C-alpha cells in the first residue's frame, strides 16, 4: 500500500536553498481561482505548514508583487486531525506531515499547493468539508446511548472485534479518500447531498458502528441508507481511497463488507424478513 508521498523526490536535500511554491488561490466562495508563485527559503526540517507560515509573514509573490497572505486550515500538526489536508503536487495528503526535503530537495524546485477539489473553497487552501459530517449523519455514525434513564452497562465487546474495529475508528475525516475518488464529485447544492455518493469514509464508519455491540441497534437504518441512492452500490471500485488513506484504513474491505451486508439486507427486505 503506497500513500500519496510517492510523488516525493528522494534526492538528498540541499541546505540553504530556496524553492518556488505555486499556490492555487481563491478570494472566496464562487470567486475565480488564480495561481501565485512564492519564493521561499527552506529551513531545516521544513514542512508545508512552515512554508505557508513564511508566506503569511512575507506575502510577496516571486515576481515581487505584494499580495494577501495565503489562507489555510490546520489543527494538530501531527497528522491526526485532518484539517490541513490539501492537494500537494497533484496528490491529496496532509500538509503538516509533508516534508519539503522529500518534495523539493534542490534549489529552485517547484511545489504546487491546491485546495481539495471535491469540497467548496472557503478561501485559498481552506475548504468547507461539512458534507463529510452530513454523510456521517446519513449513516448514523454514532452509538445510540442517549436516554431518559440509566441504560446500565453495555454489552461485552470481544477483544477480536475491538481489534478489528480499532483501525476503522482511526478515521479523522480528512477527506483524502473522497478527493482521490472518481465517484465522489463536488456538489455545491446541499439539497443534493442526500442522494450523492457517500464516499469511503462514511461507508467505513457505517461498518464500524454496525460492528459495535451497542451501535448495532441502528444497523438496519444504516443499511437502508447504504442500499439507497449514493450508498455503497455507487462505488466504482477504483480503489484510490485505500491508496491515499493516511491512516491505512482498509477502506476497500469496508466497502466490500458493507456490500455483503447490503446484499443480505436487500434479500431480507425483498422477502419481507
Amino acid at each position, binding site marked *: 500500500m503506497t500513500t500519496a508521498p510517492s510523488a516525493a523526490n528522494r534526492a538528498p536535500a540541499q541546505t540553504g536553498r530556496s524553492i518556488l511554491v505555486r499556490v492555487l488561490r481563491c478570494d472566496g466562495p464562487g470567486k475565480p481561482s488564480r495561481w501565485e508563485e512564492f519564493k521561499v527559503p527552506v529551513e531545516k526540517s521544513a514542512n508545508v505548514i512552515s512554508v505557508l507560515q513564511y508566506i503569511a509573514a512575507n506575502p510577496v509573490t516571486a515576481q515581487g508583487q505584494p499580495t494577501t497572505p495565503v489562507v489555510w486550515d490546520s489543527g494538530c500538526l501531527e497528522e491526526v486531525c485532518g484539517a490541513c489536508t490539501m492537494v500537494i503536487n497533484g496528490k491529496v495528503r496532509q500538509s503538516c506531515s509533508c516534508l519539503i526535503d522529500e518534495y523539493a530537495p534542490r534549489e529552485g524546485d517547484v511545489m504546487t499547493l491546491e485546495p481539495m477539489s471535491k469540497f467548496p473553497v472557503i478561501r485559498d487552501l481552506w475548504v468547507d468539508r461539512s458534507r463529510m459530517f452530513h454523510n456521517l449523519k446519513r449513516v448514523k455514525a454514532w452509538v445510540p446511548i442517549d436516554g431518559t434513564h440509566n441504560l446500565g452497562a453495555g454489552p461485552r465487546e470481544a477483544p477480536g472485534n475491538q481489534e478489528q474495529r480499532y483501525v476503522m475508528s482511526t478515521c479523522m475525516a480528512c477527506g483524502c479518500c473522497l478527493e482521490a475518488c472518481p465517484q465522489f464529485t463536488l456538489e455545491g447544492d446541499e*439539497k443534493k447531498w442526500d442522494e450523492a455518493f457517500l464516499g469511503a469514509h462514511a461507508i467505513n464508519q457505517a461498518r464500524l458502528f454496525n460492528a459495535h455491540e451497542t451501535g448495532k441497534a441502528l444497523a438496519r437504518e444504516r443499511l437502508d441508507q447504504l442500499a*439507497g441512492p449514493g450508498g455503497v452500490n455507487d462505488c466504482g*471500485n477504483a480503489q484510490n481511497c485505500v491508496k491515499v488513506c493516511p491512516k491505512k484504513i482498509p477502506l476497500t474491505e469496508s466497502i*466490500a463488507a458493507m*456490500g455483503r451486508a*447490503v*446484499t*443480505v439486507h436487500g434479500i431480507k427486505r425483498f422477502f419481507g424478513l
Partner: protein
Amino acid sequence: MAPGFTGRFVSPNVPPQPGSRRSGRRKGLIVETSTSPKAAPSFFERNHLLLRRLHSLSGIVPIGVFLIAHLTTNSSLAWGKFGLRGQYPELGVQEGGVAYFQKEVTWISTQIPHLLLIEITLWGAILFHSVLGFMYARTGRSNTSSYGYGANWRYRLQRVSGYIGILFIFYHVATLRWGWTFLVPGGTKWDHHFSASTLASALRGGDNFTAAGVVVSAFYLIGITLLVFHFANGLWTAAITWGLTITAQAQRRWVYVCFALGAGLMAMGWSALIAAVMLNPAQARQVELKMQSKAGEAAAAITAPAASAKAGDPNRPSGQE
C-alpha cells in the same frame, strides 16, 4: 448551555415537518440535517438497490455466460479441425475449422429451442445493462492523471470499454444478425448456411481485403478486446459489489481468477477473429457446399430406412397393424 449558542438540539431521528425551523441551514453550534422539502423519489431512487444489482447480475447472466459460449463457438474456426474427430479427413486445419464452425452454427440454428426468445432476452439484457451502465458511468469523473494506480486505470477502462463495446455490439448484431448490409463494406449478408464464408467476406469487405474491410476487422479486434476486458474486470468488481470478496487478499486472489478467465476468452476471441479474417471466402464456400451435399446425403439415408419401415420392417413393432 454555552454562551453564544443560538441553535436547538435536534435529534436527527425525528422526521422533519415541512416548513419547520429544521429546514434551515446552520444555527449556532448545531449543524442541522438538511431536510428541505424534496420531490417524491423517482423510480430510479426507489429501486436503487434492485437496479444496481440487476445491472451487475445482467453483466454475468445472461451476457457474460453468452460471451463465453459465443467466443468458444467462434474460436472453433481456429481449432475446429481437431474437434471433427476424424470426420472429413481430407480437410486441412483451416478448412476443418470452417467445417466444424458450420456444424456448430447449424446445430445452434436448428437444434436450440426458442432461439428467438433467447436472442430477445439477450438483446434486452444488453440494452438494460448498457443504458444503466451509461447512466452510472456519467456520475463519475476519471482521475488517472493524478492517481495512476492500476485499479483506477481499470475503473476508467471499464467505462471506456462499455462505451466503445456497446457501439461494437450494435454494429456486430445489426450487420450479421439483423442483416443491415448497408453497414457492411461489400454488402455481404451473413447466412447461417454459409457461416464462415459470409463472415469472412463481411470482415474483409468482400472476397478480397478492401480498405474498409481492414477498418471493420480492426474494429472487431478493438471491440472483442475491450468487451472481454469489460467482462473479466466486471466479474472482479461484481465480487466486491455483492460482497463475495472482502479482504484485500481475497480480492487479489479473485483478480488472478478473473485474469485467467479473461486471458482464455481473449485467446479464443482473437484466434476466432484471426481465423475468420485469414479465411478465403471462396474456399470456405466450397467446404460449406460440400457439407451441405453430405448433409443432404445423410438426410436421404435417414429418411430411406424410415420409408422402408413403413413398407414393413420386421424389427419394428407392428401393434397398429
